């Protein structure tokens, strides 16, 4: 089966068509430009839009009287609990997507040939289950603060936009386990920092028990990061022929679920 690292007919670079690309480059170099200025024109226009732009949306109203009262008291103290709720909503959405990402990774695993030190099905299932538990944890946390765990908060929306590429990478049948692990490494790096911040915010808002639970989740995420990092490293060095002893010949086959 073909591997993406095999030599093939990649036609994207100029060296793939030296005669034609020389003509394109010479043509571009010798043609007079019709518009003065430079990238600064774009920067100025973008800046004018940024100055006037409305946000992507807003936070939902508290769902309970208790929540409303608590929010009001916090705000009187000079705190902004909606910032905390927004980040909770972001992580909640992120963990929910994380469950789906690791489900997709299991499909990749089935189709891949692994190097030594690569992921096992049990390890991936454990991470998936952790993400699901974190999702539950965050729903409970959101409800306890009077928030709506079904709402898409502004940060949840933007994080979803940021993760859209990762979802595409995992869903594409042509991508390999290694390529998917690269994408998941981005997710896990963000996840780690995000849980540190959430625990800090919970402390700041006097939610000691919640902060403790978040630190347990953080410990899970630290473990995820170590695992994914190791899998990426073993997979890539194995494919490059640098790993010690590949258990099986290759990890770079396109997945065929």
């Amino acid at each position, binding site marked *: 089966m073909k591997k993406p690292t095999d030599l093939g007919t990649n*036609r994207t670079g100029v060296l793939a068509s030296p005669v034609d690309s020389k003509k394109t480059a010479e043509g571009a170099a010798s043609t007079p430009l019709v518009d003065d200025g430079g990238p600064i024109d774009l920067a100025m226009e973008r800046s004018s839009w940024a100055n006037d732009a409305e946000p992507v949306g807003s936070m939902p109203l508290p769902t309970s009287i208790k929540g409303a009262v608590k929010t009001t008291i916090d705000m009187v103290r000079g705190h902004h609990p909606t910032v905390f709720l927004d980040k909770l909503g972001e992580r909640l959405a992120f963990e929910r997507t994380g469950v789906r990402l690791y489900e997709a990774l299991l499909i990749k695993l089935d189709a891949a040939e692994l190097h030594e030190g690569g992921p096992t099905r049990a390890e991936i299932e454990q991470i998936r289950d952790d993400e699901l538990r974190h999702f539950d944890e965050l729903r409970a946390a959101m409800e306890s603060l009077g928030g709506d765990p079904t709402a898409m908060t502004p940060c949840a929306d933007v994080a979803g936009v940021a993760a859209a590429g990762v979802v595409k990478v995992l869903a594409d049948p042509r991508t390999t386990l290694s390529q998917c692990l690269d994408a998941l490494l981005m997710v896990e790096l963000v996840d780690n920092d995000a849980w540190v911040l959430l625990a800090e915010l919970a402390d700041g808002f006097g939610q000691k028990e919640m902060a403790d639970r978040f630190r347990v989740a953080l410990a899970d995420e630290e473990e995820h990061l170590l695992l994914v990092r190791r899998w990426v490293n073993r997979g890539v060095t194995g494919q490059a022929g640098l790993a010690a002893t590949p258990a099986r010949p290759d990890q770079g086959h396109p997945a065929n679920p």
Partner: protein
Amino acid sequence: MSLDIFNERGVPLDKQRFTWKELAGPPFSKIDDDAFTRVRVILMNGIMSDALRFLHVFGRRNRELRLPLAEVRRVSHHQQTMVNWLNPPDQSAIETTIGFEQVAIEVTAALAQHEPDAYLAQNYRFGLLEDFDHLYRFSALMDRVEGKDANNILQSYTDIQPGRPTAVEHRAPIDDVRRSYDRQRTAPLTKLNALTLVASEFQTHDYYMNVGPTFADPVARMVYAEIASIEEQHVTQYSSLLDPDETWLEQWLLHEAMQVYNYHSCLEQESNPRIRGIWQRFLDYELGQLHVVMEHFKQVEGRDPAEILPSTFPDPIKFTSQREFVRQTLAREVGFRAVGPDLFADGSESEASRLYRSQLNTPVSPTTVIAAGYRWLPGTELVSLPAASRVATAPATTH
């Protein structure tokens, strides 16, 4: 190899079937397949989209033919699906846009060269130089917003240079309506060419209208809005070349023949074996559909389709780089402007177009902003700048 459309009967309409798995089959490779495979996929998606459009409008205007129109249309819809789903998911909206402009340049240039009617050929060259500029503007957008090189998509077949500046392409409608060909005296090839370009430009317009709002960058959103407006002008221009006195059935016959001609052209030049199989299959389907229409034409109009259609098809559309033709056209005709149905070398313009354009381009011309001082280089414009000055930063704001 020429095609005898009267004796080649293709696949009967009731045998033209699909499965979902076929319709959403594996895509082509964005990085390994030849750019002209993408060109053909984008073109044929446009052709099939226009087939649906035409057949729907026809159905609204004709009670007796509603069923046969629906039958052909259902297959056409699935043909379009199968073709459009060849686009790969790793091909972003801006990358697909670059592909659309490559279609607009290379296919229009090919048609302009074999178009027997001098007036239509001139109009194609006129439109070509505008699409050529769109490619330059979108390439600048791709580079400056996403940090990507448009030539990864173009594969060095097509120049990335300014054409007729998009900012001056905006014209009042009166300067976009052209004279139609005369259905009685015009060569079949002219009709097929015009229908091909109408279909292609219509899909380009619709694509930009769909993906434009999906961009986050405010200037990108304006650029798509601006260029979509020109595509609407191009559809107006090319549509007005068609003779409105053609009967509905005559138009249907020509549209089916145009589809046959395009699939035949794709088949003759496709380098991807799997996709060549799709072109062969759809050529056979279209021949079957063409013969259905021929029968309706005979029965309803009591006329011989041979009055309308050529006995053998002209040479296929050339899917190859038209760089030298485009450069010559650019050198000679970039200064042409339209006044009413005519194109003038001296740059004459109507007051209506000047006012229209001035109003739209105030306070900002998005396509001018995106490409200000832009010169394409292999690997993006960033390779030419010393590291310290590579990032354009806007002046500090107040928040």
